């Protein structure tokens, strides 16, 4: 079937699913497990926090039990220094050099800080991390991150948790047009059509969490997102019809009976 042959690559790793589902925001590990399963994701994010007895272990059990690859993030870091140290702790704790790099400017917008982000990305690439940076939708910043050696760029559709979808498809289109590494839409997805649109714009994958974990029925929404990402990818590959101002008949106008 068309979609199966179409694997998604980050560096040397390949994935059958182009949906990356984060673990943030789930009301319980049970619901998270059910949603992760329904999403079909093969890569999921976790954050690093001070140990709270009992918790941590079971989360990793859920993820590894499902055979999903871990992608630790640096969520909540405001400086390159914090992000780099958090990344090293994550690598030590989880034995992976994959990293979702997040360096935010403030808690209200949770938008990335371009300067700290570039600084952290450079240090971490040099230190051998496989860096997947959460960035804004600026094509120039995306290009600089790629030039620093990031394995992908992950522009936002809209701020984290807003569910506003893709506010600026034109920028995402420009990023896709120029990118030499995978483009992963990260943050802002609110519903299935947002995820489909991201893929139609040419993104290679979609990363989301709240849209699923905070939905009224997370498992069903996870299933929706899985199908939406496949749908958008297939539509991109299938080559959509052009947009026209005027109508074009799908039934032939010739051969109509004379019935008046």
């Amino acid at each position, binding site marked *: 079937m068309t979609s199966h042959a179409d694997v998604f690559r980050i560096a040397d790793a390949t994935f059958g699913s182009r949906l990356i589902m*984060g*673990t*943030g*925001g*789930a009301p319980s590990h049970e619901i*998270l497990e059910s949603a992760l399963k329904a999403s079909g994701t093969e890569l999921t*994010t*976790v*954050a*690093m*926090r*001070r*140990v*709270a*007895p*009992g*918790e*941590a*272990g079971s*989360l*990793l059990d859920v993820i590894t039990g499902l055979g999903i690859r*871990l*992608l*630790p*993030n640096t*969520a909540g870091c405001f400086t390159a220094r914090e992000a780099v*140290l*958090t990344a*090293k*702790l*994550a690598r*030590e*704790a*989880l034995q992976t050099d994959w990293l*979702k790099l*997040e360096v935010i400017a403030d808690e209200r917008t949770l938008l990335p800080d371009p300067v700290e982000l570039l600084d952290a990305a450079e240090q971490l690439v040099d230190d051998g991390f496989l860096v997947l940076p959460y960035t804004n939708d600026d094509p120039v910043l995306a290009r600089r991150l790629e030039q620093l050696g990031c394995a992908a760029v992950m522009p936002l559709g809209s701020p984290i948790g807003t569910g506003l979808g893709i506010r600026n498809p034109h920028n995402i289109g420009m990023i896709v047009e120029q990118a030499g590494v995978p483009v992963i839409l990260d943050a802002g997805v609110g519903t299935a059509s947002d995820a489909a649109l991201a893929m139609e714009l040419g993104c290679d994958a979609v990363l989301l*969490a709240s849209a699923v974990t905070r939905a009224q029925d997370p498992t069903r929404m996870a299933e929706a997102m899985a199908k939406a990402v496949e749908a958008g990818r297939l539509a991109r590959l299938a080559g959509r019809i052009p947009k026209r101002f005027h109508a074009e008949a799908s039934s032939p106008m010739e051969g109509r009976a004379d019935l008046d």
Partner: protein
Amino acid sequence: MNVTVNGRHTDVASDATLADLVAQLCARPTGTAVAVNGDVVPRSAWSRQRIADGDALEVLAAVQGG
């Protein structure tokens, strides 16, 4: 011996190692990492490394996020 663990002042035995401390904090050490005074200490060194008076320790693990 007074140290700071995850921001809290804690009293630990004078000959305590990182391994002892982590064991206290969580059932299984898997999935945890430790920074002492801002430097990561690899798990392989935990049983050797003694905690010093006044150390600031961060013991982290993976939680839902992102």
